[in-house]
């Protein structure tokens, strides 16, 4: 059996169906199997990325033996491959983190791990697929796993957050399905490459309606304003590893689908400006809302929304440098926000309340955790020796190159807001008056391990950005080369 992109989908599904049976043999297997699967997928990523980088050509896998327009295909290009590898890497670390995670372990662990693995599979599938309806199916898998995981603790707030997410998410699915339906009546195919090829035959009015339906549906998953009401609740009520998964995988899948639809499927000029405007609104509102939060996890959630707004702005600029910066920021956001969620969750766990006030002086009790959280906070606001600095710099340069000076000013001003609320937390951690509470919960070994890995990656990329920029440059080039995407996909087997 040759290693191919379908392994990303087939093996987790097989494992998910096997797990209820294996749980009867040994409960521990339930916790171990997702890790085994994810580690194998990490290996698959390395092999496939190597192959793609060597040949410079995307791997296009047909499924069920039917070529491009008739059947479904998976596209593992330098762009999708980069995102998928990032997702699998993050999922593996989050699995290590949540292994023996106390609060999850008190609950039915079997369901947790099945849902977690499907959340990963769904997000990876959204990125890999070359078929618009298949993307919808994977969106559904991701969404349904997210709803259940949001309300996993079954308390009142969790149920509320889960229900809110469920309502908004169902609306998103409906809009996306409507868009796909309309699209099919116009072009008679569901394959994204072929849709892109035939798009010029669609009348403009119809095109705009379809695009708006897509933007509404996908914007909800991508946390675009004003469709992101679910996000702060879902992030703060879900178990912490799941919060990290939302930031590292689910939002990335949402943004990917938005970008794929705008960059590849449609050729409407105003769409890029629309992205910039929505991005700016999202960024400003989210960052100011984050500053007002008293709850740490909610603050991180709003910051996450703000970062996604930033990504949308960068994609909206649309030049090669800007797309490079956007992808770099997506990478940075995945690792940094996960680190913040992981370390933040232990502070919240060990303080009397979920509030930032309750964190007073906790950095002195957990010096190492405080150190990790501070690295994350410094990195995400974009201080120089950390990885976040580079992505912000590249986006600013790209904006300046296009002489969008107002945009540069807005980004820099909002960065000040960002610095204010992150530094406020860091200051509380170190200079607040410690409470007398004893240390109750220490992180597990897995927790220490994955957080340390993330911190090392942040520093490493900060000092030597070259180790990652090569991949991102090629990913950006692949994304922007629409003609190559169409011809590559449609030439398979012809």
């Amino acid at each position: 059996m040759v290693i191919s992109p379908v392994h990303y989908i087939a093996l987790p599904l097989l494992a998910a169906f096997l797990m209820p049976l294996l749980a009867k043999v040994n409960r521990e297997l339930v916790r171990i199997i997702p890790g085994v699967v994810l580690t194998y997928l990490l290996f698959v990523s390395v092999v496939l990325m190597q192959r793609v980088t060597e040949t410079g050509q995307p791997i296009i896998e047909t499924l069920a033996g039917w070529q491009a327009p008739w059947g479904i295909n998976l596209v593992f290009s330098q762009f999708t491959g980069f995102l998928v590898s990032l997702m699998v890497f993050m999922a593996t670390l989050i699995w290590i983190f949540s292994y023996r995670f106390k609060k999850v372990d008190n609950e039915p662990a079997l369901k947790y791990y099945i849902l977690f693995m499907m959340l990963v599979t769904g997000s990876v599938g959204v990125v890999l697929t070359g078929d618009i309806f298949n993307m919808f199916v994977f969106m559904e898998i991701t969404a349904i796993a997210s709803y259940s995981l949001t309300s996993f603790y079954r308390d009142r707030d969790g149920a509320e957050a889960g229900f809110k997410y469920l309502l908004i998410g169902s609306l998103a699915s409906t809009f996306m399905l409507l868009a796909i339906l309309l699209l099919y009546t116009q072009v008679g195919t569901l394959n994204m490459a072929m849709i892109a090829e035939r798009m010029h035959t669609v009348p403009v009015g119809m095109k705009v309606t379809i695009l708006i339906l897509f933007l509404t549906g996908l914007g909800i998953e991508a946390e675009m304003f004003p469709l992101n009401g679910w996000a702060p609740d879902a992030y703060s009520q879900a178990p912490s590893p799941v919060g990290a998964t939302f930031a590292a995988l689910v939002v990335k899948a949402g943004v990917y689908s938005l970008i794929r639809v705008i960059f590849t499927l449609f050729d409407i000029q105003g769409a890029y400006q629309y992205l910039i405007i929505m991005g700016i609104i999202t960024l400003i509102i989210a960052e100011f809302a984050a500053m007002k939060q008293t709850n740490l996890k909610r603050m991180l959630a709003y910051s996450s929304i703000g970062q996604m707004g930033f990504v949308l702005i960068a994609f909206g600029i649309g030049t090669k440098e800007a797309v490079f910066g956007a992808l770099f920021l997506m990478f940075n956001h995945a690792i940094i926000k996960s680190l913040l969620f992981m370390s933040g969750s232990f502070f919240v766990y060990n303080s009397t309340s979920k509030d930032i006030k309750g964190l007073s002086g906790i950095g002195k009790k957990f010096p190492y955790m405080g150190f990790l959280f501070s690295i994350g906070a410094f990195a995400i606001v974009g201080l120089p020796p950390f990885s976040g600095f580079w992505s912000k710099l590249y986006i600013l340069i790209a904006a300046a190159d296009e002489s969008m000076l107002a945009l540069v000013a807005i980004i820099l001003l909002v960065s000040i807001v960002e610095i204010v609320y992150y530094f406020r937390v860091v200051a509380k951690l170190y200079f607040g008056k410690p409470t007398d509470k004893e240390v109750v919960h220490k992180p597990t070994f897995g927790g220490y391990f994955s957080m340390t890995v993330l911190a090392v990656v942040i520093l490493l990329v900060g000092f030597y950005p070259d180790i990652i920029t090569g991949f991102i440059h090629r990913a950006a080039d692949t994304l922007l080369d629409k003609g190559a995407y169409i011809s590559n996909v449609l030439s398979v087997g012809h």
Partner: protein
Amino acid sequence: MKRAFILLLLVVVGWVLADTFSQINFGESRMGDIKQQETVGAYYLNNTVEKLSVANVVTAIVVNYRGFDTLGEVTVLFLAASGLASILYRRKKRGEHDVMILKNSSQLLQTGAKLIFPAILVLGAYVFIHGHLTPGGGFQGGAIIASGFLLMFMAYKDYHVSHNVLTWVESVAGILFVSVGIWGLISGATFLENVLGTGTLNDLISGGVIPLIYIAVGFKVAAELTGVLETLLNFKTEK
């Protein structure tokens, strides 16, 4: 004021959508340009019988051309059932009793249910086994079977389906579906490819792996929907 604004917004959205949909000629005969093969639909109609020996083209699309989607849809159902079980999961407190339905259902319903239950099961099985020949298939057949169990739940207040059995059926059927896919990979073809011979049109055993997959889907859907009903009716679950 706020309400009027929302109403206005809804009217505008509704008008735009209605306008867009009015441009599509739903119900118009499209058989005229079937030979053009512009759309994938035309290709399916023209080639399915010849290439797959499957009389029900919809089944061929669902299970073969777009079988990967179906695997995803099966997973969606599986996740919905798992998610429901994880949310409705509750440890029984000490001394707590199950919620009891005190009244028995009427004699008429009980006798009728007993009579009709096997017939519903047979109909469900018929629908998914003949999915490649007649209208229907795994999802429909599975739903029919689950409706039979629903009837039994309503008729008999202490009717129970073993969770153990449901888990086994569900898992084995799911594993079978994925294994058929991986079988294609192992035999050097693509994932979910029809690796068996297609046989003759209208035979019960024809269409290669299509009936196999639909039988697995039928069992899986039946077990999952029954499991969902069981979870909702008995608000307590396995340890």
